């Protein structure tokens, strides 16, 4: 298990244990964390698992693919560090990853 820190829009910090290989979206929705939906279950069809990657971690992630960028353009309040969290796979290298959630997914 690796650590995933999700900070919601109110600033509350949720420390989650995530299985390596599980996406950030799945790890968060498994815990029924509010503020993240993941409506489509991770097949890049909904843009409701939008999160902001903490600046310190940005360079350690693979860049988003074309389909993710396409769907990300559907999300609200997108910033340069925005990602669809269903596309971020937890791993030893991402132990301690910090993700902030937007005020709303839609």
């Amino acid at each position, binding site marked *: 298990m690796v650590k995933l820190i999700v900070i919601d829009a109110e600033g509350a910090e949720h420390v989650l244990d995530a299985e390596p290989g599980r996406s950030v979206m799945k790890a968060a*929705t498994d815990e*029924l964390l509010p503020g993240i939906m993941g*409506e*489509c*279950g991770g*097949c890049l*069809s*909904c*843009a*409701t698992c*939008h999160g902001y990657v903490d600046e310190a971690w940005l360079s350690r992630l693979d860049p988003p693919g074309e389909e993710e960028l*396409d*769907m990300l*353009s*559907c*999300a*609200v309040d997108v910033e340069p560090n925005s990602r669809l969290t269903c596309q971020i796979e937890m791993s030893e290298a991402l132990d301690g990853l910090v993700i902030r959630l937007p005020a*709303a*997914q*839609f």
Partner: protein
Amino acid sequence: MAETQLLFRKAEVPEHVPPENVIDFDLFAQPSADTDFFEYWKRLQAPGVPDFVWTPCNGGHWIATRGEDIHTIYADHDRFSSRNILLPAERNEAIRVLPTSLDPPEHRPFRSLINHALSPKVVRGLEPSIRELTVSLIEGFRQRGHCEFASEFAELLPISLFLKMVNLPVEDRLKLKALSEQVNRPDGSMTPEEVNQGFYDYLMPVLLERRANPGDDIFSQFLAGSIDGRPMTDAEAFELCMQVLIAGLDTVVSVLGFLMMFLARNAEHRQLLVDDPARIPPAVKEFLRRFPLVAIPRTVIHDMEFQGVRFKEGDLILVPTMLHGLDDRAYQCPLEVDFERRIGIHSTFGAGVHRCPGSLLARAELRIFLEEWLSRIPRFDIEPGRTPKVLYGIVGTVVDLPLVWQV
């Protein structure tokens, strides 16, 4: 379970179906008016009913009766194809729709166009017009002290909004609704060929005109879209726009009907939302778990064993979304409405690549509706002596819900 005359042929039981899995369940049966829609479906989870049953009705098909299997089948397009989405199977030859009947990878470019048309960004932008329309409809009958909720509200809000998004006149709604109904709840009055022709005669001139003079509506966006680098053909545009119409005209309408039937009969639940509107967003989640109403088939791609059952290539499995949120293996006391309930996975919007792309729009409409209705008409009942009318089929719906309130 069939309680009305069969519209479609019954099939012989195939050799690979064990006799103990065979039941008689007609998707298009219309049980008596005092039947509860959800309890009717839930009979498929009664003690002793296998997790997969096979019915000879409507050309013969399996039914997945348990939530986890329902979710798995919708999500697994490698084993379960979407090539037939209507029952009986031959109706799919006459009525072709995109992208619902495509499997990946062909499905993706069409779906991508719909994803953009109904995105979080688009839905957020629509909120003011949803609210404005909701308020004006309610104010239109509030002083009267009664309304027929299905025709005076449930059909008007989502359909008017949707027809605006595709830039079609709201006056055309009855005609389009009637055609959609023959897809989801055929009554034998039209052949599937006639239904398809009806949509074609209506839509094709519109689409040709939009291709020549594009606007900012959803259909024009579709027509401008690229399908793996090539333009969309007229035939594809027709099948895509027909699907969007059918889905847009016949689902939120139905959820609104069922949830208002519930709130009219359950004053305590209603009062919780009136007293504290902050409970409305979790209530919408719970209503969506509790009132699922779509049942679509999938087709088995290869001979295989799944959950201990032998399936043959081409077998049809009806996958009722109703039976996931209502499955006691997934949710305790599933028929109870509990706004505090922790809601995880259910299949009300399907799952996988075909998951309902209109789910955010539906959630927004339901939330805004409850906020505006309950602040204006906090107490209401079903008109004494009247029984609401529910129709069964691929999409269940409420067609007659007479409500009364004190003015």
